[in-house]
């Protein structure tokens, strides 16, 4: 649906790598250009009309984000360069100071690198332990398994809301309720869920939540860190400089501004943040419930066909998101991606930055198809047809 809104789709391509990044509607692109053409001034200066306009537009996005994720306060929304920076900011600006040697952080083996490596770094520098919640036979996280592994040392549970290879939706609300009963912080990496299912941070009751704009029709280089206000107050800025300080003097005394500015040093990605507002409006205009329903149907349509092809090994037959991971027996995933590229089909091959997932699913690399609302049943038919002839693949993949 809505294909006419996406200039990229005027080309003859089938784009099935939405887990990596999504396409941008015309309104987002136009808004970027509008900033550069009509009011290209810096933010937070406000001494002249166009600068005032920038501030209004910039803060308008913050307000839209707040409503989009149902946050309580505007200052709970911090703009970053992306989910990766957001996760680094809370691990290195908050948990570094809070956790002590021997404290435990629980993640899973299906997390993205951005939710693994910052914790590993903290383990290597502060002596905390990073352990894994065991996954069930479908590679899902369950509350029961979590209950089995927490210890009095467990201080943080950090999980993707939807994982980027298995595509399972985690029971975040139940996990957060249980975690808080045990004084455990909950960090949610919402990169893969934010543009696909509704997010209500107050209902989920998570402590921190991170995501990127470009995975929900927005521009690249913009991300969000949400944190409960009373926790964000204690996040130490990692980047220091202009915009975030209240005053400083010759004696090296520096006074920081209040949230959210304190955590947004330097000139931000103004064009990106402003254009992000159009992405939120766009997704709201379709409706996340409708998007989610459509993706599930499209995915089921594809999986029902792939399952009939004897040499295709599906990694995640069941999944509530739009992600399908699979392999063609005896052929390296990248060769399949090259083959599909000859027909202008964009899919991803590899480990998808989930490099410890191999311990869980038993294979290093997979092909990943990740659909969005602008993908069609006809596109799925085309993909299935191309994958249905193994001899053709072998003949054409080189």
């Amino acid at each position, binding site marked *: 649906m809505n294909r006419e809104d996406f200039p990229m789709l005027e080309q003859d391509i089938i784009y099935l790598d939405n887990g990596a990044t999504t396409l941008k509607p015309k309104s987002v692109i136009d808004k970027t250009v509008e900033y550069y053409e009509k009011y290209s001034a810096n933010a937070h200066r406000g001494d002249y009309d166009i600068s005032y306009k920038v501030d209004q537009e910039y803060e308008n996005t913050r307000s839209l984000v707040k409503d989009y994720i149902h946050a309580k306060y505007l200052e709970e929304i911090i703009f970053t360069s992306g989910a990766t920076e957001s996760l680094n900011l809370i691990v290195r600006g908050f948990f570094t100071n809070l956790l002590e040697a021997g404290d435990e952080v629980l993640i899973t083996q299906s997390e993205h690198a951005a939710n693994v490596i910052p914790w590993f770094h903290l383990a290597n520098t502060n002596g905390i332990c990073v352990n894994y919640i065991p996954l069930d036979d479908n590679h899902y996280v369950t509350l029961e398994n979590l209950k089995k592994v927490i210890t009095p040392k467990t201080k943080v549970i950090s999980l993707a809301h939807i994982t980027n290879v298995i595509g399972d939706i985690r029971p975040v609300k139940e996990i957060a309720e249980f975690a808080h009963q045990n004084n455990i912080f909950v960090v949610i990496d919402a990169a893969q869920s934010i543009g696909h299912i509704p997010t209500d941070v107050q209902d989920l009751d998570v402590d921190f939540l991170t995501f990127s704009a470009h995975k929900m029709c927005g521009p690249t280089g913009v991300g969000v860190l949400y944190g409960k206000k009373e926790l964000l107050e204690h996040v130490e800025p990692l980047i220091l400089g202009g915009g975030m300080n209240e005053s400083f003097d010759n004696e090296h005394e520096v006074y920081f501004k209040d949230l959210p500015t304190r955590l947004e040093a330097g000139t931000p990605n103004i064009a990106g943040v402003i254009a992000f507002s159009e992405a939120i409006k766009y997704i709201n205009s379709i409706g996340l419930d409708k998007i989610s329903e459509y993706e599930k149907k499209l995915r089921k349509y594809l999986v029902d066909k792939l399952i009939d092809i004897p040499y295709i090994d599906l990694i995640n037959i069941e999944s509530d998101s739009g992600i399908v991971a699979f392999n063609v027996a*005896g*052929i*390296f*995933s*990248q*060769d399949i991606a*090259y083959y599909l590229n000859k027909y202008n089909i964009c899919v991803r*091959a*590899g*480990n998808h930055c989930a490099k410890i997932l191999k311990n869980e699913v038993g294979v*290093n*690399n997979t092909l990943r198809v990740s659909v969005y609302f602008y993908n069609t049943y006809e596109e799925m038919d085309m993909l299935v047809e191309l994958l249905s002839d193994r001899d053709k693949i*072998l*003949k054409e*993949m*080189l």
Partner: protein
Amino acid sequence: MDENLRREIILDHYQNPKNRETVTDEKYIKVNSNNESCIDNINIYILVEDGILKDIKFDGEACAISTSSTSIMIKNLIGKTIDDAIKYINNFEAMVDEKEYDEALLKEGIVYNEIYKQNNRKNCALLPYKGIKNVLNGLKNQKNA
């Protein structure tokens, strides 16, 4: 070169690669080659005795081009002196980089003579050569030192 023959040779070395075996013998020098931009990851094990490449094996995961290129490279390098092996490697790299090269030296390696037409696959063909070349140059310098 006939396209069907080219495909047949590459696919044969991909599906039935020669010398694919994990080596634990410490007499073998192990070198890893991987491509930054993709997921190819190959270990090569080299046994050098009296300046001769007595044996070479490989393991790992890689695409059809990388796997077949490794299999063909190994087949052509076993039995060569270090100097001749480096000569073979330089000649192969010259071909992929569209420079002057000696066709007669390449044997089955010639199947990649048009790989330059697919820019994103040049590195696949070159993958095994990167690691082994470093090792051989190191051994050569040791000998000369």
